[in-house]
């Protein structure tokens, strides 16, 4: 689960990490008063106006504007609020800006990168810092990996100050800035663990002209499986940032991801669902979605799956692929028939059922009188659905 920059900064603040502070507006009528409040509270004429969307790359897309005075700040806020901001992460269609964050402007001496995430190969958390702040870390990792300093943290011991010192020395800090950096890194780790984050990233962390260390941005990703113990963080979810169909699917406990193709698919199990998308593509079609209906695949889930898939107008054919292990295929077949009868067959449906009672299931489907196309195996199913696509 992702959150906005201003929400992330509020979390940082609660952990004692110094931030570039400010206030959020959703209504342009609140802009003049908020700008004045920021100017007054942080003793600054200049402010920064920042679009709040979940996607990265906001600066390059025109979503972060330095504003030397009130007039410019107002103009920037006006332009930004409601605009469709497109970055390398949003795709061409962009993401509508519903919130604008007005913050203090700082005089920056130097920018750094720092992040904590899981190192899957080591099954330990890794804390990474780099003197190359403000740029894409992937680029630094590829071109100048020696500029990234890492420490791995023992989960049973937690982060120790010698590790934080290694990071701070590595970035070349000295004097008071060094001491602050060590504290900030320790607090960042406490924040990472305390919020069940899967990534905490500050890019950039800055050293100001007056030698303060401040987080200019805050990027969080949280472990959805741990949100049951963080109600306060779960409440920060912004449904406007999510695809409406995916949001609808999540209400039915369906794991759905929308893609750009024309062949809808419904599968039990995530691995088999991906493999089904792949074989549709190999057969010459384009998968329209990922949809894992889970182990049960009851009549109800099949029906909800159909609804979700068919809400995408691009879908011209559907492939249902169920490998019945514990779930019985005859039950799935009856579910498919019930769903088709209720919703009507708008596009051709190819069904492949394998596993428990697969033969009975095929008989049920062929005797239903409905124009459901039965398939024998995955290859057969993929070819049949692509053929159906061409005909329709």
């Amino acid at each position, binding site marked *: 689960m992702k959150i906005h920059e201003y929400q992330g900064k509020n979390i940082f603040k609660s952990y004692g990490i110094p931030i570039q502070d400010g206030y959020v507006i959703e209504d342009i009528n609140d802009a003049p008063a908020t700008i004045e409040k920021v100017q007054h509270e942080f003793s600054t004429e200049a402010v920064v106006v920042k679009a709040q969307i979940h996607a990265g790359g906001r600066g390059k897309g025109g979503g972060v504007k330095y504003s030397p005075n009130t007039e410019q700040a107002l103009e920037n806020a006006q332009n930004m609020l409601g605009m469709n901001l497109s970055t390398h992460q949003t795709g061409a269609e962009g993401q509508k800006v519903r919130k604008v964050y007005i913050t203090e402007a700082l005089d920056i001496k130097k920018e750094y990168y720092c992040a904590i995430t*899981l190192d899957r190969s080591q099954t330990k958390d890794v804390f990474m810092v780099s003197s190359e702040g403000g740029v894409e870390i992937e680029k630094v990792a590829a071109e100048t990996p020696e500029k990234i300093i890492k420490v791995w943290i023992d989960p049973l011991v937690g982060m120790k100050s010698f590790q934080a010192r290694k990071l701070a020395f590595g970035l070349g800090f000295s004097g008071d800035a060094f001491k602050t950096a060590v504290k900030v890194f320790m607090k960042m780790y406490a924040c990472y663990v305390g919020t069940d984050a*899967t990534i905490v990233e500050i890019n950039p962390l800055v050293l100001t002209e007056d030698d303060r260390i401040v987080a200019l941005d805050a990027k969080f990703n949280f472990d959805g499986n741990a949100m*049951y113990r963080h109600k306060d963080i779960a409440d920060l979810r912004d449904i406007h940032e999510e695809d409406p169909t995916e949001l609808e699917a999540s209400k039915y406990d369906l794991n759905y*991801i929308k893609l750009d193709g024309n062949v809808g698919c419904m599968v039990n199990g*995530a691995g*088999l669902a991906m493999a089904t998308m792949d074989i549709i593509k190999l057969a010459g079609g384009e998968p329209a979605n990922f949809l894992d209906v889970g182990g049960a695949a009851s009549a109800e889930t099949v029906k909800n799956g159909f609804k979700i898939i068919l809400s995408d107008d691009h879908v011209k054919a559907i492939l249902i692929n169920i*490998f019945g*292990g514990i779930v019985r295929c005859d039950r799935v077949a009856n579910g498919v028939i019930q769903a088709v009868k209720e919703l009507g067959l708008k596009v051709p449906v190819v069904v492949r059922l394998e596993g428990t009672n697969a033969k009975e299931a095929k008989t049920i489907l062929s005797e239903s009188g409905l124009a459901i196309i039965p398939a024998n195996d995955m290859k057969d199913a993929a070819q049949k659905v692509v053929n159906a696509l061409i005909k329709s």
Partner: protein
Amino acid sequence: MSILVNKYSRVIVQGITGSEGTFHATQMLEYGTNVVAGVTPGKGGQMALDGKVPVYNSVEEARAETNANVSIIFVPPPFAAEAIIEASEAGVELVVCITEGVPVHDMVKAKRIIDQNGTRLIGPNCPGIITVDECKLGIMPGFICQKGNIGVLSKSGTLTYEAIGQLVNVGLGQTTAIGIGGDPVIGTTMIEALNLFEADPETEGVVVIGEIGGQMENEAARWVKDNMTKSVVGFIAGQTAPPGRRMGHAGAIVSGGDDTAEAKMRIMTECGIAVCESVAEIGDKMKAALSN
């Protein structure tokens, strides 16, 4: 022979009185698995599965009374990591955790403890393990398997069944099938499972099924190149998965650095693994690999 479990494995079911635990433990018993005890805190002294299996309050107690050496976990996600640690501290040799949705931070700690204790963990978020006609630990449908000489190793549940189905269709049975799970932190890696199959005299070839995300398949491929004498067939799910999206499994996400299906397939091929472009080729590829 086989790997990890056989008809002599003595099994504890943690969470035996829950609906999932009861259902699957019953299926396991029917398959012939030697289920000797169940654990549900507070329900010690009761009998589960129609009076067939005694329930204990702790794994320690269950182990002391029944001398069990294997445990399978069907407890809800908030308590699963602790159940793993409990089994490990009680001296269980092999722990299988079926539970999906265990918080990553919990697993990182649990993993550290089981490594320290020398416990082998399979999962979490996995279908379990089956040694054909001997022992079924988990939720796999036993009837689709057939005794034979192929090992199956996979991150995914139903995709494992698909592979087994194809193997049976081309006349190839299995020794053991193991679902290692699709989470970012799991107990037994692909390399460890391959090592066990390599050492098993009955296994002649191994099907490895991976997916996008992480480096495990790449690490396994390099290990195969240097250490494996048996035929290995590979498949990677997620060729059409968009980057940055979590495809069902918590670990199935393309986030950069050779973790795409394309990169993994390339590295596996470079390391001498027979890679299937399509999922439909798994059975045929294994047959061809064995006759080479």
